[in-house]
């Protein structure tokens, strides 16, 4: 029986993985919504949607 050399190896498949577009979009939206307010050496986080 001939060996199949064309099949991609597991490590190659792992290397090509990427997060879903929704996840990236969520992070970008989260970043836009998050603002850090400095007040008398205190930092407040505000999530503005």
């Amino acid at each position: 029986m001939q060996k199949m050399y064309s099949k991609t190896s597991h490590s190659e498949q792992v290397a090509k993985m990427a997060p879903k577009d929704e996840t990236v979009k969520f992070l970008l939206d989260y970043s836009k919504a998050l603002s850090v307010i400095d007040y008398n050496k205190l930092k407040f986080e505000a999530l503005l949607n």
Partner: protein
Amino acid sequence: MKQNTHTDAVLVSAYINGDESALSHLITRHKQRIYSFIYSKVYNRDITEDIFQDTFIKVIRSLKRGKYNEEGKFLPWVMRIAHNLVIDHFRKNNRMPKFENKDDFNIFSVLSDGSLNAEKQIIKGQVESDVRRLIEELPDDQKEVLIMRIYKEMSFKEISLQTDVSINTALGRMRYALINLRKVIDKHNIVLTN
């Protein structure tokens, strides 16, 4: 998206200064590597997605709070955060191990509720009352030995002392009691199983 040629350090400082698109470039540049790193540890797409998201939430918060010192090590820093979150994930799972059913194996096929359901309880009650009625039909000497042995859990020595017979006689009465019970059960086709 257009390939951005700025270094990580330039993009990080642009992001800290309010340029949101810089974050997009940073994520696009490193997402594959970070995602693959997480996946190589947890081997689960959903968990990888969660940890990837939590990693960048930490990155965003740290950058916006000004907690990150730029030393040209953005990627190792993000990888370290991802690594710590992977460890947190395994710690949490060790505290509360989770079992997932696979297609070919279901845990409930080997785990069952040992207590009897209502129907089986009724049947058990009927069987027990049938056995008591059968015992009542036995000759008195056999019945006495059987009740002492089975219901009172007495030893044959104790039975022999209480009934003033030898141990062998008590054993013989017990034997005949069981033989007689079996005879009656066979004769009347009584079912005594649940």
